[in-house]
């Protein structure tokens, strides 16, 4: 369980969260919706530890993340940011090799198969389309061994076919892990999720 307790956070003068609390359950898929600027990505960055709360705490499976080392945080949660920078011409296979074998989730091969990634292995990541890069980025997060997977707008560059494949994968993985998906467009995918959090 990820517990957000009495969280307050402001970007400069822009107050994003004030005494906000919620819970993200394990072994289920949660959809995090809300309009632009409602703080969805900010919440992800706070859970991810790249932003620090002004007050309040974030506790994952009983561990306050502010007390954890970077490596220990990565063993608890894995995050696919909205944009990932692919500026060096690694092959897709080399990109996945960034996650060492000992840090790989058991379901890594399921992820590669579900998203048709084996075909992309020999290609340079810099030469892929935006949608292909996004699939690589999401998969990179999903193959990391963790208790929770947090995906920021994973469908934004996907066609309906891959949106469906990714939704099926999320459903499969949510049986054994906790998954949180951010989407600003929640209507047609809400049925695939067990829980909903709406930020306004």
């Amino acid at each position, binding site marked *: 369980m990820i517990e957000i307790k009495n969280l307050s956070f402001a970007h400069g003068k822009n107050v994003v969260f004030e005494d906000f609390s919620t819970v993200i359950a394990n072994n289920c898929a949660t959809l995090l919706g809300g309009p632009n600027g409602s703080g969805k990505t900010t919440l992800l960055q706070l859970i*991810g530890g790249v932003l620090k709360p002004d007050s309040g705490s974030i506790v994952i499976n009983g561990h306050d993340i502010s007390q954890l080392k970077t490596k220990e945080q990565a063993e608890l949660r894995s995050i696919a940011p909205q944009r990932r*920078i692919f*500026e*060096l*011409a690694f092959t897709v296979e080399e*990109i996945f090799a*960034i996650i060492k074998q000992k840090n790989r989730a058991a379901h890594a091969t399921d992820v590669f198969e579900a998203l048709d990634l084996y075909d992309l292995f020999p290609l340079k990541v810099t030469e892929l389309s935006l949608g292909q890069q996004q699939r690589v980025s999401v998969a990179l*997060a999903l193959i990391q061994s963790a208790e929770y997977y947090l995906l920021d707008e994973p469908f934004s560059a996907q066609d309906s076919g891959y949106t469906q494949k990714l939704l099926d994968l999320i459903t499969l993985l949510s049986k054994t892990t906790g998954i949180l998906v951010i989407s600003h467009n929640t209507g047609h995918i809400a049925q695939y999720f067990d829980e909903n959090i709406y930020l306004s």
Partner: protein
Amino acid sequence: MKKVALYSGFSALAIVLFGLSLRTGIVQLHTSFWQLLTHHTGTDATTVWQIRLPRALGAAIIGAGLGIAGSIAQGIFRNPLAEPTLIGLSSGATLGTIAVIASGASVYGSKTNAASAVLFAVITALLVQILAPNKGYGFLLTGIAISAILTAVAGLLVAVSQKPGIQSLSFWNFGSLTLLNNQTLKTIAPFIEVGIILSFFVSRRLDAYSLGESSSHYIGINPKRLRLLAIIAMAFLVGASVSAVGSIAFLGLLVPHIVRLLVGPAHRQILTFSAIIGATLLLLADLLARTLFQPHEIPLGLITSLIGAPALIILLRTQKGQWVAND
């Protein structure tokens, strides 16, 4: 296969240049090389084993170190412009080494001297980090500004110091291997070894770091610690070389660009290859500096600039796909 050919090709070239460095110079050798291998006495033996060998070894080690430092700089700042000189490491090291000589605390070629250069390099690089605005080219520009200040202060110390062994401003700013002997080599080699080991230690994490700072944090890499380790590694490499031979222009910028073109983006390979190319280029540059205008020796930095800068321009015009875009 291509990589094996590249490794062996450039290694062979380095060995040939190394041999040439031992053979050629102002003093003509009258003894054959094979005789010299078994006879360690006589003028020719002294010339080769006491003067040319440490110089050639030094060129290889320093070239390898500067090549690696350049590649680490580009990797950790995710910027094809980053170079130890631009981020303040070289000027910090120069001031560090000149300061201890000018104050009389230590002499040229001593361990204290090299350590001071390394320490000043680390401090300068951290200062640039702290002062730089956290956006765009802020840190490179801050690095250039800080470097200008430190170079000026170092120049001032050189101008007013009466201490023997302070060397000329041209020595520090353009670099020269003339003072490399067995003693200086023994002093700097351990520093460069530490720098190389530390560089390979961070190399794998630099691959992940190329995906961005938050991305690497999510994967479990502490970006601040990684940057500190990389800066320390570069400071050992650059600081030790500067304390012995001054700052050598363009090597740290040119080597990674050649290497990235040849072996792709994985940092472990980039570092290995940077060492080989760096050693090759510095051996070549020093050979030219010693022989082009015999009996005069020209400052090494002139050669590396005259060859390195045009080579870089040609490379940049033909290079494709390695650095796609900056975020």
